[in-house]
């Protein structure tokens, strides 16, 4: 964890705490700076399996396998990863698999890399087209409540739900080292 992360770890730590309380046991991820704190915490938690993926669609299939085996999972990715998942999402729909994904947004606020923008603009539409309910969080004080509610929507109501974490909340990416 970098010093920079520690300074803003409040809402990030609350995500980990919600996942922990919500009995999430498999945490699949393609890394993102916004998820780094949660990824580290999950790797250190003996009750969780943190699984690094080569591409995000593996996390969709992994979550299906976890549910078949009686465990709850979450997929952590950034908005570009949603595009890598599209056909695999049909698995969730066809089998009605409860599913939770937390998505850090790129390409929408103080973005220095325009290559992130096209998928960013398509993220919400793609998720909805594949049957997800999509909620967004922009205020750090709301993160805990929103993620907690989404977790229940997935594993109590059986929905496929995505929480978009606004890039504004994550802050500017420092491209140049101090």
């Amino acid at each position, binding site marked *: 964890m970098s010093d920079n992360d520690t300074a803003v770890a409040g809402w990030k730590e609350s995500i980990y705490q919600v996942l922990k309380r919500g009995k999430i046991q498999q945490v699949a991820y393609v890394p993102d700076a916004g998820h780094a704190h949660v990824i580290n915490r999950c790797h250190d938690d003996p009750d969780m399996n943190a699984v690094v993926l*080569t591409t995000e669609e593996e996390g969709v*299939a*992994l979550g299906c*396998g976890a549910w*078949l085996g009686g465990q709850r999972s979450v997929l952590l990715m950034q908005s570009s990863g949603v595009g890598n998942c599209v056909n695999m999402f*049909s698995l969730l729909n066809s089998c009605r698999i*409860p599913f939770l994904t937390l998505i850090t947004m790129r390409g929408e606020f103080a973005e220095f890399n325009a290559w992130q923008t096209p998928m960013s603009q398509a993220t919400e539409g793609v998720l909805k087209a594949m049957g997800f309910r999509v909620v967004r969080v922009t205020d750090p004080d709301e993160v805990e409540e929103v993620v907690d509610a989404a977790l229940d929507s997935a594993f109590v109501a059986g929905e496929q739900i995505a929480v978009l974490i606004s890039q504004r909340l994550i802050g500017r990416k420092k491209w140049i080292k101090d």
Partner: protein
Amino acid sequence: MSQTTGSTPNINRREFVAQLMKHCPDALVIPGLGSSNYDLFAAGDRPENFYMWGAMGGAASIGLGLALAQPSREVIVLTGDGEMLMGMGSLATIGAAQPKNLTIVVLDNGHFGETGMQRSHTSLGTDLVNVAKGCNITHAAHLSKLEQVTEVKEAVTAKKGTSLFQVKVKADDVPRALPTRDGVYVKNRFRAALGFEPV
């Protein structure tokens, strides 16, 4: 370990899968989209089969999630070369996670059987055993004879590490044997066999 380079595959896929299921009656099985799905159903319907009619490339990752969730159970991913090739990155993910109770069986006919028998990459130079080994799945082997199904059985029942077997099967058409396409039913039946209620 047997090498099959240059030899003509002579394993009948239906016979191999029937033998495999006879040897591993307790295994939880994730078949990949396509012929493997039919082979598994033809070997006998059972709740512990998660029939798949889509999600190409996902079988191995589903197997990983299941193996991590059920570490005391035997988990078999039974798939074809085309389905495995589409999810080849998942071999790196599995090699990193190293579940002890996961065995991947690739029924390799070297062709995309569902779509007109076009040659796949395993007919064009890709060796999935080498790929698996390169992904740190150290127990990986080619099988070229039906009798070698016992090697798979040993790996499945030992639960001592992830294994991958590339089984060279004949590229011939076998009679259709179609399991149900109702994914919700298959999921609920599978979970019920493990003692889990529907949502």
